[in-house]
């Protein structure tokens, strides 16, 4: 009898296990997990991104029970603001997504609050070894932990409206080689201002700006680095170095004199209307360049874009900033984090990475894709501008050092204050300069207005 009772308990246990597994199977049910994604690949990039996400959802997503649902497509600044709001649980802020694009500065803020998943736990060493080490290094933003996964990196290059430049060059004798250095750009910009001014003889001093940098902060960072100095020292800007003074002068003077543009926005806006014809900015900005220039009377002119490696200060070393956001996984359940990692792995597979790169202007992130795109695939790319861009990047990959911006808490605010301060001082000096021009020559007028400008800027910090 005792034996029978023991058997009964055993049978009961088996029955319970079977039933749990039956109901467990019923519970799993193949119901997919929806992972929300925020990204900043808007405009024409959206189409490429949509295609990739659809493909994932239809293939690997079906097998793994994952649906990627995009719930925000907005600019980097907007995503940064939304993430910050959400991280701080501000009223009206949307809930954090499962995967988000984030620049290191944004990711640092999220990591400080413990909101990001440790990607080292979600990828094996072997998997990580496939990625460009410097891109991974940029993602190790806190205590050496990988929080930002490189999905699409970028650097800065020089964009030029070749159509207008050719017209200008044929009349003035300037050459595209003059744009290899920032000093050369300054000289060409002065000539361009005079050339455009001369087209309306009736109106004096109405020349057009030639050049603009999308980020004056990066301009200074890379400029100082090229000259062998540090723009940021001890989490503060070093205004006193002679190298910075040279970098400052190279942009401030053309800006005051109207040869370079001071504009609260991206250079692509001014390219669209022909207000400038040359700029430095992220490779990812390529899709924002319009194939035409629209003039005030709504006439349009096709604009051929030329893309050149990032300019270098005379005597400086060839370096350019390494940019581009990566993707972060927001901390949630272990299962969800693993599923998000499945998407990131798929998205950065060489074949998918190449597809994304060849239609967006970002740089590949895996060694294999970088190697292939730089050799075999380049000729097969249909988009002429992307082809030009990647050709310039290939030169830069061979000859340039990619420089990672320093990262610390508050760099975001520091950058904003620098940009605002520089633009504000340059604009007010520009106004005074134009007033003085009525009775003075340009050099004298500039000297008169620019004497204290640099100390005025440094006093803001």
């Amino acid at each position, binding site marked *: *009898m005792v034996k*029978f009772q023991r058997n*009964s308990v055993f*049978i*009961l246990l088996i*029955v*319970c296990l079977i*039933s749990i597994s*039956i*109901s467990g*199977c*019923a*519970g799993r*049910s*193949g*119901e*997919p*997990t*929806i992972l929300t994604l925020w990204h900043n690949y*808007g*405009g*024409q990039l*959206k*189409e490429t991104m949509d295609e990739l*996400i*659809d493909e994932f*959802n*239809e293939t690997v997503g079906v097998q793994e029970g994952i*649906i*990627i*649902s995009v*719930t*925000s*497509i*907005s*600019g980097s*600044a*907007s995503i940064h*603001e*939304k993430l910050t*709001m959400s991280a701080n649980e501000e*009223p*009206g*802020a*949307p809930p954090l997504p499962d995967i988000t694009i984030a620049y290191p500065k944004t990711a640092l803020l999220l990591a400080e609050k413990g909101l990001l998943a440790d990607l080292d736990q979600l990828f094996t060493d072997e998997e990580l070894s496939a990625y460009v080490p410097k891109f991974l290094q940029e993602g190790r933003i806190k205590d050496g932990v990988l929080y930002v996964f490189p999905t699409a990196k970028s650097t800065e290059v020089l964009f030029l409206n070749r159509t207008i430049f050719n017209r200008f060059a044929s009349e003035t004798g300037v050459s595209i080689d003059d744009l290899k250095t920032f000093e050369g750009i300054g000289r060409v910009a002065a000539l361009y201002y005079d050339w455009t001014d001369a087209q309306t003889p009736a109106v004096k001093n109405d020349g057009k700006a030639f050049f603009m940098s999308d980020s004056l902060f990066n301009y200074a960072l890379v400029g100082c680095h090229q000259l062998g100095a540090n723009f940021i020292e001890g989490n503060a800007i070093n205004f006193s170095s002679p190298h910075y003074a040279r970098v400052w002068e190279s942009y401030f003077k053309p800006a005051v004199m109207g040869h370079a543009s001071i504009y*609260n*926005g*991206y250079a*692509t*806006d001014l390219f*669209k*209307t022909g207000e400038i014809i040359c700029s430095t900015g992220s490779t990812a900005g390529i*899709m*924002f360049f*319009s194939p035409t220039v*629209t003039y*005030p*009377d*709504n*006439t349009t002119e096709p604009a051929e874009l030329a893309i050149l490696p990032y300019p270098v200060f005379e005597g400086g070393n060839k370096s350019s900033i390494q940019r581009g956001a990566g993707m972060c996984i927001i901390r949630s359940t272990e299962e969800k984090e693993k599923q998000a990692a499945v998407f990131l792995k798929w998205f950065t597979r060489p074949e998918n990475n190449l597809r994304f790169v060849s239609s967006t202007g970002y740089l590949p992130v895996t060694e294999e894709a970088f190697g292939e795109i730089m050799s075999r695939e380049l000729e097969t790319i249909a988009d002429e501008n992307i082809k030009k861009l990647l050709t310039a990047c290939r030169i830069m990959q061979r000859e340039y050092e990619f420089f990672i911006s320093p990262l610390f808490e508050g760099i975001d605010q520091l950058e904003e204050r620098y940009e605002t301060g520089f633009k504000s001082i340059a604009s007010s000096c520009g106004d005074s300069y134009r007033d003085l021009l009525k009775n003075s020559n340009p050099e004298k007028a500039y000297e008169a207005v620019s004497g204290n400008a640099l100390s005025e800027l440094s006093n803001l910090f």
Partner: protein
Amino acid sequence: MKNTLFRLKNMAQPALHKLQQAGEEGMPLGQRLFLFLAVLVLTIFLSFIAILLLTGTFTAGLSETERFFDNELARTSNEIEEHYDQISLQTVNLAENLSRSIEQKTSIMGISLSNLSEYPYLLEEIISGECDQLLFALQLVKSSGVFLILDATINPILARAVHSRSGLYIKNMEPNVISASSPNIIILRGFPGISRKRSLPLHAQWKMEFDVSDAPYYHRPIEAARFNPGLPISRLYYWSDALQLPGTSEEVMLCTAPLIDSNGCIFGVCGFEISAMLFKLSHSPGSSIYKRLFCLLSPLAADTIELRRSLIAGGYSARIASSKQNALQISKQRHYLYTYRPEQGHKFLGLHSYIQLYPHDSAFADQHWIVAAMVPEEDIMHAVTRLNVILFSSLTLLVIIGVILSFNLGNRFFIEPISKGLNMIKYTDLGSAPRTRIPEIDNLIDYLALRNRELAEKARHENLSFSTLDKFLDRSRELTPAEREVFKLYSEGYTANQIAAKLCLSINTIKTHSKRIYSKLEVSSREEIILYVALLKEIGKEIN
């Protein structure tokens, strides 16, 4: 194979033997109880399944799904209707305000709106003057964009001037973030001067003017206003299908109303935009049951939903369907839900209802729009099957637990006390036997004790001399040692089977011994042996 069969045969041998024995000697009480309970529980289980089938419990998942779709559709439909009503209302307000404001400005400029196209150089000033009103209107309603299009172009001599219209299109890229410090306002169409003056960036696909060559959102309300001169603006606003604005990658729905001055001159349109992303963020159904549930807003024609003309919201990438399929054919099934069948691929199941985007006397009142909520068919089937699997496995589990528990309890509280009682009858002095607390057995013990006493009395009364018992005692000495062993066990109350098991002898051997014992002792049953032994005990004699 042969070996396996042989092994199975060997394993089954003892069980078969037991069954054979049970057939020969009858079934023990425990097995009888188990069989009885098993039949009882199985009958209850089958009856329960039959009741569940009759009451439709196995199809309850489907009914539940139907109720779920009913609720989900009602909620989504109300939400969308409310949202679109607000946009419609604001479109009408904006059109009335802009009509008045532009008329006043042009009148100050000394021009008539009917001749607006003759003053292209004034367009930037007129449009720029309305920028604040457009920005303000954008804040009043949950919309991803606001626009104003005038029936004039900045450069009438251009070849494309016939389809080019001046205006201003302002987009809010983050309409769902309500407290952003710097709302994402950018200009999609309009003069760059406005962008510079207000520090509003240009959209990546910016153009100075609108291309209205294929723009029903521009032409339809203007035509409606021309054909229905008496109708107020509130009856002339128009909702476009979901469309991609020319030269952009934005998928949007636009609500437009004509701009009409006090003389009835129609000089443009204005309106609001709902982008596909805003629609998705605002109206995505959040279901924990059906994660691939999505809803759509679509014009309806001939029982067909044209996906390219619809806005879709939901976790499921229904866009996959829309990018590859053009239409979903609606058909009614025998159950409550509708089937939405694409030309290829998986079907969807769900519900839809009409939504009122216009007043009944609107110029566009004949347009039918529906809101539908649906999921891939396999999801519903899966959910229903899953419920049934859970139900069936739970029932089976309960049955098995019930059988095991009842058998255990039956053994403890039924079989064991009976066995104890029977042993007591066999081995103890019935007169001093303890009570078993089972009335039937206690009665039996009482009865047997009484019977024993009566038998003893009778023996005495019949002058049953001690010589009878002595003779029995003498005859018992004739038993062989083997027969004595069996006799002893008989006298202790063992049955033939038990004796065979105890002495490791076959039942036939025991039977042979029994025959000889009965013959030598001149008795005819085991009970008689037990009685003689009991009587001998009573007179103080024992068989050695």
